[in-house]
């Protein structure tokens, strides 16, 4: 079986994690190569977590937060948006395809949208192919 790429997803507890649960209760089907880590707000997700995920071998990182204006803590998602763009610039400077990192807004009632997002992102990552970060960094020749 071809090694399916692995995607690490950081979901905020109030909106996107609830949306993912809703996709579950509505029995939507999506690609199983995604692994979810729950944080209280998308504002908690910073470059360190994303870089660590890639360093540990993730092929794609998905960050989801509440729609602008819906954040349970009012502004967490805006901060996440700012870090996301700077991080994309940094990683492309290091030679990694910046589309391996994706930020989307998923609300508590958007189960279907979450399922579609996962499928479409995992297809995109399959297209780009598996990430070489872990191999490159562990190579000491």
């Amino acid at each position, binding site marked *: 079986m071809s090694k399916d790429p692995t995607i690490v997803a950081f979901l905020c507890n109030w909106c996107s994690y609830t949306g993912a649960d809703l996709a579950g209760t509505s029995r939507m089907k999506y690609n199983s190569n995604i*692994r979810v880590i729950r944080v209280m707000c998308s504002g908690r997700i910073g470059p360190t977590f994303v870089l660590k995920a890639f360093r540990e071998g993730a092929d794609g990182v998905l960050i989801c937060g509440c729609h602008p204006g819906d954040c349970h803590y009012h502004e967490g998602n805006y901060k996440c948006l700012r870090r996301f763009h700077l991080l994309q610039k940094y990683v492309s400077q290091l030679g990694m395809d910046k589309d391996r990192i994706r930020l989307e807004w998923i609300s508590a009632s958007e189960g279907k949208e979450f399922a579609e997002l996962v499928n479409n992102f995992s297809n995109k990552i399959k297209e780009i192919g598996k990430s070489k970060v872990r191999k490159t960094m562990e190579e000491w020749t």
Partner: protein
Amino acid sequence: MEEKRIGVYVCWCGTNIAMMVDVKDVSKEMEKLPGVVLAKNYKYMCSDPGQDMIIKDIKKYNLDRIVVAACSPRIHEITFRNALENAGLNPYMLQMANISEQDSWVHTDRIEATRKAKSLVAAAIRRVIHHKPLKKRIVNVHPNTLIIGGGVAGMSAALELSEAGKKSFLIEKSDQLGGTAAKLKLSFPYLNDVVNDISNLIKRVEKSEHIQVILNAEVQEIHGFIGNFNGIVKTTDEKEYSIEFGNTIVATGLKSFDAGKLKNYGYWKYSEVITSIEFELLVKQGVVVNKKGIVPENIAIIHCAGSRNENYNNYCSRTCCMSALKYANQLRNLLPDANIFEMYADMRTFGRGCEELYTSTSRKGIMFLMFDQRAELPLIKEDERGNGVVIEFKELLSGEEIQVPADLVILMVGMEAHENAKSVSHLSGISMDSNGFFIEKHPKLDPVATTTDGVYVVGSCQAPKDIPDSVSQAKAAVARILATILRGTVEVEVTTAEINADICCGCQFCISVCPYGANSFDAANDVSVVNEVLCKGCGTCATACPSGAISTKHFTDEQILSQIEGLMAKVHELEELETN
């Protein structure tokens, strides 16, 4: 560091998980991980025997950390934390892995789903190693209650509280109490005259010394958390009240759908076409005439105006069928020999006494016609054969394309969210679904509470409902509030931020980041400090802190990084297993 003793429990959840995830294989695999003392699986972990098993194991094997792989932590993290507490273990030494809503229910390949479950549980195990015991914070509860919305739900809640001797602030946007209920003449299903019932209710609210009614007022801001809220209310004549309260009840109700949007009904074009709200006014004055002032001979009542249709509102507004029957009865009394037509999609008369009203109304010579409210709506146009209009549509029960003459058409407009619903949800820190209704914590576990402690949603603002159901919900919220007031204190979430003074250099990056102003600069010690009372634990400042001095309890960098490591390590291990 003393050695960690972890217990892992994988739940079948009946067949919900077991049908797609090989739970036995997962629990066997987890035994190999470092720190894991035992790994078991059981049919219903959240049940009595399930929780007992955890409690007994903790005592028997003196476990100090528990991982439960089951459904979403949003549903049962509290349940298992209580189980840990009963076993004498700090409730925060628990980590859950969501292998049902986010694994077995959403994948189709059993091998893949089981492999995913293994990496999720391995990640949870690596994370729980870094969990630290946390003590729940107890805060006092202010006995007053803020009630937003002076409709029948808000008033019932205020009255129930005042009869228990508790004070409440009743804030009403318009200039009078009563909301939609005040506009009614009769109620369904027993067609009792409610005018004086509602006015008595309003009088009792105005008379009660425990209820401070503030009309023409809107809440500008709310700060604080359960038990310790404070807010500012501003009235249209610029008066300002700053109030303190322990709980909030949102009872803002709904407004009626704007009939003008329904092109086919020509609400603005024809004076014969009125909405149910306008009909209530007419019938209250006891004279039923259309806008031309003519007493109608043919009256058509059209259900589902703006409801159950993709182009307008997709949901059912629940109370219009019964109101329509009520109107048919009122019309029959006022105009004994008028022809009354009632056009419905599904006759939804489900409540107590409602089917009986439907039966008795059918005996009153009312022609019930069925139309498909999801297809093209019936068309209203001029009646060539005389004054008044004609409604043309396909009647489903006979399959005939028919024409109904009418010189009065009553549109049973559905309900929808107020324009300012979004700002109310912001204000009180609750969330709204795609239809604009406020989201309850759990439709069955907790139908009136919200994910924000101390804030309750009652009445139609949570979803369209009739008066008795709204009153039930209002009193249900009061039950929970009375319980917290009587106990005097309430436990508050404790995953707030904390600043390590040895590392913090006072660079003040974190001050402006916090929307709640929980971080402040202590000039004396040249460090920033967190006000645990205001902090809600979102963690944005922890990620913004350049020196890593700030971390949020239970979501520290170390915990999340180790969760990532555990996750990916298991993925690679299984991949190697796969290839060779």
